[in-house]
């Protein structure tokens, strides 16, 4: 347990995304902590200091719980149980931490010791005759809003919520992006053998196991359609350190490592084929009642077509030659010319496969 916490602490510094989230939460916590005393008491220095400390400590606790620990058994709890658990957890936390902070600052103000302040009835006064209950309610409401927003932003994934807040895709824009289409091999056979629910679990596990190799190489998951995942990179990010290609090889080895697990649980081990291409897309919102940020461009269809040709060319990875030209692959890779991919109403695309020497 202790080791696990240490590892996730280390990850907090390694994964810049989580670190960013932690800073944002603590920043907002600080603001909310300072907001309360300004709302309520004007400019009493003592309560401003209290607000500051409680804001920082409270949001620090939230960061620790929700980001660093992120306990797995909690994520699998039923919603009602989860709400109950968290309400109790945070209530106990705030009910114990707030009197301590307030007593500390007030005893300082009055030049007495902490013990003397508590024994002298100051704490009793604060708990039962002042705004203690309101502070608790305020802290809990803020915590609920925090957790809700954080969870939503996690669900929407990789910067989507942030792009929203800053209105990045309010109007359409053109971007040059690298696309990777990943498709599970033999999905029909696996699906027919496992049945709907088991197959769903299999897919979930498959996606789970390849996710790390996508995000650690700065890929953005665009969407899941059936047993296909679409991943994309801004041109520059994808070419840098051949990030986009690393994703394929890392995902492949991640699955190979878990081969036994899959065989034991499902009787099948997943393998996938991948198609790569790049091109210009229009990025913008589509839809009214249900709206989506979507990428529109020929490259979407082309890349799907390239991926479909993997079977024909008997390989698991096909890359459009025009993308290969931009990539600075290390000498560890063999490039194998494969031929062309036919596109309806368009010129065929020359493609190659690569493998590790």
């Amino acid at each position: 347990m202790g080791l696990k916490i240490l590892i996730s602490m280390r990850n907090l510094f390694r994964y810049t995304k989580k670190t960013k989230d932690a800073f944002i939460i603590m920043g907002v916590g600080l603001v909310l902590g300072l907001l309360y005393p300004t709302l309520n008491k004007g400019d009493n220095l003592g309560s401003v200091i209290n607000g500051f400390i409680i804001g920082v400590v409270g949001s620090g606790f939230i960061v620790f719980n929700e980001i660093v620990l992120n306990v797995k058994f909690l994520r699998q709890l039923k919603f009602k149980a989860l709400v109950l658990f968290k309400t109790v957890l945070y209530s106990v936390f705030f009910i114990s931490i707030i009197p301590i902070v307030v007593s500390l600052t007030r005893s300082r103000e009055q030049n007495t010791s902490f013990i003397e302040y508590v024994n002298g009835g100051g704490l009793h006064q604060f708990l039962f005759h002042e705004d203690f209950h309101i502070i608790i309610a305020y802290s809990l409401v803020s915590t609920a809003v925090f957790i809700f927003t954080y969870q939503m932003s996690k669900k929407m994934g990789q910067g989507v919520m942030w792009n929203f807040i800053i209105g990045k895709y309010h109007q359409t824009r053109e971007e040059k992006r690298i696309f990777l289409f990943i498709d599970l091999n033999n999905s029909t056979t696996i699906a027919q053998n496992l049945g709907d629910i088991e197959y769903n679990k299999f897919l979930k596990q498959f996606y789970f196991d390849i996710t790390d190799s996508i995000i650690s190489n700065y890929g953005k998951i665009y969407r899941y359609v059936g047993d296909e995942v679409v991943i994309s990179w801004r041109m520059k990010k994808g070419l840098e350190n051949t990030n986009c290609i690393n994703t394929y090889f890392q995902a492949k080895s991640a699955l190979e490592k878990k081969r036994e697990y899959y065989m034991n649980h499902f009787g099948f081990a997943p393998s996938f084929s991948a198609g790569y291409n790049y091109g210009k897309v229009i990025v913008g919102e589509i839809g009214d009642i249900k709206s989506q940020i979507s990428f529109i461009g020929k490259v979407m269809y082309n890349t799907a077509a390239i991926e479909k040709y993997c079977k024909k060319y008997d390989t698991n990875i096909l890359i459009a030659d025009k993308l290969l030209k931009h990539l600075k692959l290390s000498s560890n890779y063999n490039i194998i010319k494969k031929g062309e991919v036919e596109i309806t109403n368009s010129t065929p695309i020359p493609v190659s496969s690569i493998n590790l020497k």
Partner: protein
Amino acid sequence: MKLSIIQRVKIISAVQITIVGVVLGIAFIFFSYGSDAFYPYVSGAVSGLIAGFSISILELYIFTRGAKKITFIWLLTLKSAIYLILFSTIIFNVVVFSRISRLNMSYLEVLNDTTFQYYLTHGLFKIEVIYTLIFAYVINFTRMMSRKMGQGMLANYITGTYYKPVHEARIVMFIRIVGSRKLLDKQGPLSFHRFLNNFYFDVSNPAISRGGVIHEYVEDLMVITWPINKGLVNVNCIQTYFDIQKLIKLKTEKYNRLFGFEPRIQAGIHTGAVVISEIGEVKTQIVISGDTMNTTSRILDQCGVQKVDFLASDQILRMLGLPKNIHTIPVGEIKLKGKLESMALYGIKDFN
């Protein structure tokens, strides 16, 4: 007067926003004045009510689709300015009237009252206006999130309904806009995007007014599902197709003028058990999967092969009692790709 579903959705949202406004108005007073004041609570509730109502009107009826035409920064500035003026006026007047009724003063007397002037310059007035502004931003934000998630999905995400895969019986329809990809080839992605946006906006109402849920758009493909009973009542699921077709006919002139072509739709409809589940750790998406989905997609593919625009499976037709004007034309037992057994498919036509 019969309200369209979009109007009903708007009215429900307006009521929700207003209620949230009242609750937040009361909450503010609780946090700032404490629990023993009475008049502030009335003012808080009334301000929340009026503010919530005006936010609804502005967001639902005024800042709608046209808002996309100006850049985000301008829209934000414009909205903030409007809200700032609006909320200052609302709170100012609510407090004045509260004082009029409480202290038996006239409007002018309140304005000249020193405690009131103190409230404006040194009291909570400014903070109340800022608080209400934040409320407006949060409403905006939540609405956007909810749209992003899809109909009713925000609640499902929050409560984790589909965290574990769930089996449900659904009617599923895949609709494809035929020939729209030519637009992409000829006029480029921007024009294709604009077309899709126009099209999906136009068909939103017919697509959901018969109880359907728009599950997703995959470029020129739209996926709609119904819980069984909602889809069967009034032959809703089949009628949706014809409703969309009628709407396209009405708008033909517009599409011709803007994009130089008339959209045509093909659809495949089927029913059976589907699996609904949240998928993905980093980017979570609610996916509907299972054999029924694959089969529906294959049925849609058959539209091109059989030269029929609307194909239904035997399974769905057996559940429906079709009205007289809607005819089914058997196209035979078809062996769908990836399937072992062949399926009886029927073309559907409306002879009205």
